[in-house]
């Protein structure tokens, strides 16, 4: 079935439903996702345990002994979702030391794309990237779309350890590893910003719908920044 705000309802077991707004990745669909997420969270529907927005879907996890699937769908269907495109979202500036030990894949990436390393940096810093959702690891922003000249499939062999703050690209997306973790993306630089704070609510300086604007800094500036912070 389809809800009043245009999402298709797909049951995901007896304790969750997937709300699908489309099957492609686009900021327009993603804005609908987050408008609906805000409406669901604000409505405080009894029995809802978690609301997990992604690119074009929301997973709603619920307690089936508290709210039945039918009642949940009725609640969702009656929500007033503000579908007018939300003005802006914030633009978060992210300083990045590109290449060198911070971006060990930059040279290979440039070679594979038939560009100079500086071309890659220019293309990555030239425009803001829309954050679709956070996931993969806490605070990891999945942002895009990269311009066509930067699109590469992910690495064949993932790395077992990627340092915190590493800026990476894969497919049409770019992201930042907030904490050390394994990773299969191409590592092109590193930011000195702390991106996830387990002691704060919200724990992240950005949220879906915001934009990341990367800016190049030197290794020296990176080190000064990192030591100051």
């Amino acid at each position, binding site marked *: 079935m389809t809800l009043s705000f245009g999402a298709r309802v797909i049951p*995901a077991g007896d304790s*969750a439903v997937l709300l699908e707004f489309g099957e492609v990745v686009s900021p327009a669909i993603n804005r609908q996702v987050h408008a609906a*997420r805000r409406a669901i969270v604000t409505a405080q529907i009894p029995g809802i345990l978690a609301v*997990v927005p992604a690119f074009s879907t929301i997973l709603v996890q619920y307690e089936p002994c508290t709210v039945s699937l039918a009642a949940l769908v009725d609640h969702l269907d009656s929500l007033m979702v503000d579908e007018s495109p939300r003005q802006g979202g914030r633009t978060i500036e992210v300083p990045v030391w590109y290449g060198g030990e911070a971006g060990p894949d930059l040279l290979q990436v440039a070679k594979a794309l038939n560009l100079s390393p500086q071309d890659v940096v220019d293309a990555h810093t030239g425009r803001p990237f829309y954050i679709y959702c*956070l996931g993969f690891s806490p605070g990891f922003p999945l942002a895009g779309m990269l311009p066509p000249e930067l699109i590469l499939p992910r690495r064949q062999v993932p790395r077992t350890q990627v340092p915190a703050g590493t800026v990476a690209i894969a497919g049409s997306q770019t992201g930042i590893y907030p904490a050390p973790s394994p990773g299969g993306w191409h590592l092109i630089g590193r930011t000195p910003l702390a991106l*996830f704070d387990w002691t704060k609510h919200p724990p992240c300086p950005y949220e879906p719908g915001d934009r990341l604007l990367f800016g190049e800094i030197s290794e020296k500036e990176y080190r000064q920044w990192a030591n100051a912070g």
Partner: protein
Amino acid sequence: MRIRVIRPGWQTIVQDLGRTGYEAWGVPVWGALDEYAYRWANWLLGNAEAAAVLEVAAMGPELLVLDDGVMALAGADFSVTVNGEAWHPGEARGLKAGSEIRFGRRKKGLRAYLAVAGGLAVPKVLGSRATDLTSRVGGYQGRPLRAQDVVESLGDEAPSRNTKRLTMRPRTVFRVFPGARLDRLKPGTWGRLLSHEYKVSPESSNIGLRLEGQSLVPPRGDWPSEGMAMGAIECVLSGQLVILMKARGSIGGYPVVAHVAQVDWPSLAQLVPGDRIRFEAVTLDDALNLLRIQRATVGSPATIHVVQTRAPFSGSVSRMDNYGRLLPRVGEWVESGELLLVIEALGVRQPLYAGESGELVSIVNDGAQVSYQEVLWAIREERDA
């Protein structure tokens, strides 16, 4: 009450109901994997629903009690002793300072829960005391316990309750619903899933249970990642299956073939690598009915009756289902109405079903010849008192 770790065991971690509410920031929930056993452990001490406990897995610890206090044990049977005396799951115990708690041979299940009065005193991180081993936060310094660590309870006194009920639900048949993304896989995938047997891989963790066995036709195509529910069975690129557990990433990209019903989530936590499991379709009504009964069981009194079922006629026993998979084994929790064996005589195949719910304590072997009125199986039934 303080407790010192003498030997840590394989993975002894602080867990509660999990770090919920931060999925939109990409934070995995973690939390006690067997919520049924976890709730029992806290109930035995009259603790709050979300009190933090120790989750013990695979190989248990050795602990030294530093102050007088009370503790409770639930879940898997690890032949636990206190100063050499048996301590069974389902029992709360008053313990004197100097008592030695020793986990021994693992007899049944994989995860046990040790509760203390008021829950364990560790700092909350984003609203929860659960250990997140991936991000190394929460719980006791974000890691499993090590020798010489000392954990402390929030409270000093608690009621000390016992139950005769089994405080876990060991099962190898998992009730499932069709996956949200079944349509992204080849037609016939659902039938394939329901007709094969799978083996739990040693590469399983609180994040996911990896299954070995008949692979499905791998998914073709690339879809945007989306929220992944607890119990989702995803089909990865090799066609192998992974059942997502509480420590899973909040979003994922592989198509979901099936979802394990919530009533069986606690049973997933008790599977041991090497266990053979199978899947069985269930209706929403049946699954929720079973879930309500299971919820109401925690903390409700019971009397125990071992009920025997006898052969209605002489014949030979088949313990296999139509696909050649072994039906529920001794030690498993069976549900009333569940197929346990088939008797064959003079070309007649008579399926026989469990008449009550409970732990299967004995059953005749596959291929056995039984005579009229011979005992086929016995179920340890927990009757509401």
